[in-house]
């Protein structure tokens, strides 16, 4: 279970949000919506432990994530606003090195299956990523979701530059993750096509 307790955040002089308390239960998804600059991404970065909150804390199963440190990192898969892929590497190499980075081994076939699951065909796997379109690059980043065994997913605008079909595939993957008891926090400006009882919406007004 993921909890935010009396969270507040300001960037420079501007107060983004304050006294925010929210709970995300296993099997549910928190969709953070709001205008540009309302602090959605900051909130996600606070959840990821990249950004320390100005006040308040984030609890994972009742323990402060800044106490848990690397133990908490071992619980999450974070896909930020940046794709985290290298232009000079092929999609296949990108997926494999991203998984290696988390300390897990990743076989070539597993990576290929993940890329195919998100609709990237075999020939694309061997091109340098710099020739891919924005949507294809985003899909390379999201392919990690098919290899992730982590209970908590933090996704920043996962559907940006994805076509309808890919959006559907990612939504299905999210649904499967939630059905297995996973948690997710996503920042989005789109409606998420998931069963109502699984989705909790948080609107930041800025």
């Amino acid at each position, binding site marked *: 279970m993921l909890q935010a307790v009396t969270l507040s955040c300001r960037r420079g002089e501007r107060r983004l949000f304050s006294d925010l308390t929210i709970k995300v239960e296993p099997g549910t998804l928190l969709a953070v919506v709001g205008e540009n600059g309302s602090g959605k991404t900051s909130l996600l970065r606070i959840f*990821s*432990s*990249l*950004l*320390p909150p100005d006040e308040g804390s984030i609890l994972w199963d009742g323990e402060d994530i800044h106490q848990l440190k*690397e*133990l908490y*990192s*071992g619980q*999450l898969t*974070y896909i*930020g*606003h*940046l*794709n*985290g*892929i*290298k*232009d*000079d*590497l092929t999609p296949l*190499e990108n997926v494999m*090195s*991203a998984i*290696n*980075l*988390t*300390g*897990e*081994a990743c076989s070539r076939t597993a990576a290929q299956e993940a890329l195919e699951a998100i609709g990237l065909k075999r020939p694309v796997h061997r091109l*340098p990523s710099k020739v891919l379109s924005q949507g294809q690059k985003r899909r390379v980043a999201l392919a990690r979701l098919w290899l992730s065994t982590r209970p908590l997913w933090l996704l920043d605008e996962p559907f940006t530059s994805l076509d309808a079909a890919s959006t559907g595939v990612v939504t299905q993957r999210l649904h499967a993750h939630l059905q297995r008891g996973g948690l997710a926090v996503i920042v989005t400006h789109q409606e998420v096509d998931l069963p109502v009882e699984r989705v909790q919406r948080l609107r930041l007004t800025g």
Partner: protein
Amino acid sequence: MSRSSMWEAVGGIVRRDLLLAMRRRSDAAMSVFFLVIVVSLFPLGVGPEPAVLRTIGPGVLWVAALLACLLSLARVFTADYVDGTLEQMVLVPQPLAVLVVGKVFAHWVISGLPIVLLSPLLGLQFGLSGESLGVLVMSLLLGTPTLSMIGTIGAALVLGVRGSGLLVALLVLPLYVPVLIFGAGAVTGSMAGIGAEANLSLLGACLVLSLFLAPWATAAALRIALE
């Protein structure tokens, strides 16, 4: 968080960075060319007097190596910072300082090792004797990893900061002074016949010290840069 997963992560970083360097060989070649050019300029400026060149040789080679290391620092984290892989690196279940060692090692292989391998040739330009050439290689072998270690602290501190190229030089060069003194001192010492062992062991001590302290400072600086 087992030991094997840590090696997996560190090995993954080293493999990926080396692969990236192979894809962009010109980047790695640039610091080597820089070194050769700088070193070659000195005899042209000072004059071809063999005795003079022998005297200034160790210092010139070491200062040039130091500047070449400095130039390559911008590459250590900038690309990772821009494309988001640095975020991923900070959010893994392994201690960040250990991953930093992997990054530094890869960086050293790409930009430090070529300098070490090339240095005997450059030493010949300055009329260094066979034994002194050996000491030069040895001192660079011990010294350049230290330079990479220390340099990455500066590279992490200036990530995404305006005017970072000059700033990193200002931050890092004062920290390079001891390595320069011991490194050039080792070669000078061997030429003067007083032996290089003491200087080399001090260089080794610097390496060990930087290996223990620098990754923590770099890790702290990276976390701060990503906030």
